[in-house]
């Protein structure tokens, strides 16, 4: 088992915690604002992915791992997830806009 030297300090995690809290509060504030629906959804998705990346990089130490391990996760999860949504969403939209509806 590889024992890597510790590259972090306790401060690192609590700064990460602060950033995550600030992002969460921002998302809640944006939720109250009268943004157009499409823009609102896009902003929320970006904020969500930023939060998720920060958790994976800092809390889960992805930033200290080999890039190959990061690619394994990114390809396995993000790309599969994107395909899943990409294939399903257009179909749902078609149903919404069809005559039958």
């Amino acid at each position: 088992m590889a024992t890597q030297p510790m590259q972090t300090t306790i401060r690192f995690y609590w700064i990460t915690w602060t950033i995550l809290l600030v992002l969460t509060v921002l998302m809640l504030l944006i939720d109250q604002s009268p943004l157009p629906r499409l823009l609102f959804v896009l902003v929320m998705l970006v904020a969500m992915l930023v939060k998720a990346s920060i958790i994976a990089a800092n809390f889960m130490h992805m930033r200290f791992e080999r890039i190959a391990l990061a690619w394994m996760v990114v390809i396995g999860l993000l790309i599969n997830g994107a395909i899943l949504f990409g294939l399903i969403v257009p179909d749902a939209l078609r149903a919404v806009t069809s005559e039958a509806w």
Partner: protein
Amino acid sequence: MSEAAVGVATRWAGGVCPFDAGWKKVMMWVFIITDGLLFAGFLAAYGYARLMSGVWPDQTEVFSLPFIAAMTFVLITSSATMATAVWASETGQTASARRYVTFTLVGGLTFLGMQAYEWTHFIGEGARLASNPWGDPLFAAYFFLLTGFHGSHVLTGLIVLTKTVLGLSTGKTPVANVEMAGLYWHFVDLVWVFIFTFFYLI
């Protein structure tokens, strides 16, 4: 070995320590990928149902957003205490690690308690798996599916954390296992980020 194969072997840097990360960690990540795909499937199905539904209830009228925000706060904080616990165990401060895992455990219990309260309240207002007073029957169904599966992961996490605390007390838990428990706990937090955004905010 061809040059390409050597390149792959270098990246893998295999044996019992693939990716230079240790087989336990790599297998934990493989588990996280598969478990993450389970939630991706649920969320995609939820997105489909919601787009297909002409009338999705306004979540802010059904749920108390400040309460959900408090749940999010508890979970993010427990993630930070867990990260601190992993750091403490890796720097040899076992007593401190045990204390921070205990904090995480308390955070997880609080989250689960809040979720139990939310469920009780929601069911009390008439929400059922197949029907609810706010309109589309799938609204409550997906609420129970998403938060239920997430909650069951929190419960599993609490069992893992309890075992970790006990193991740290008796010296039976190696440093690597605290890190694995940490990875799992952060994953539970990560999934909540997605559910919080997709189900409660958007």
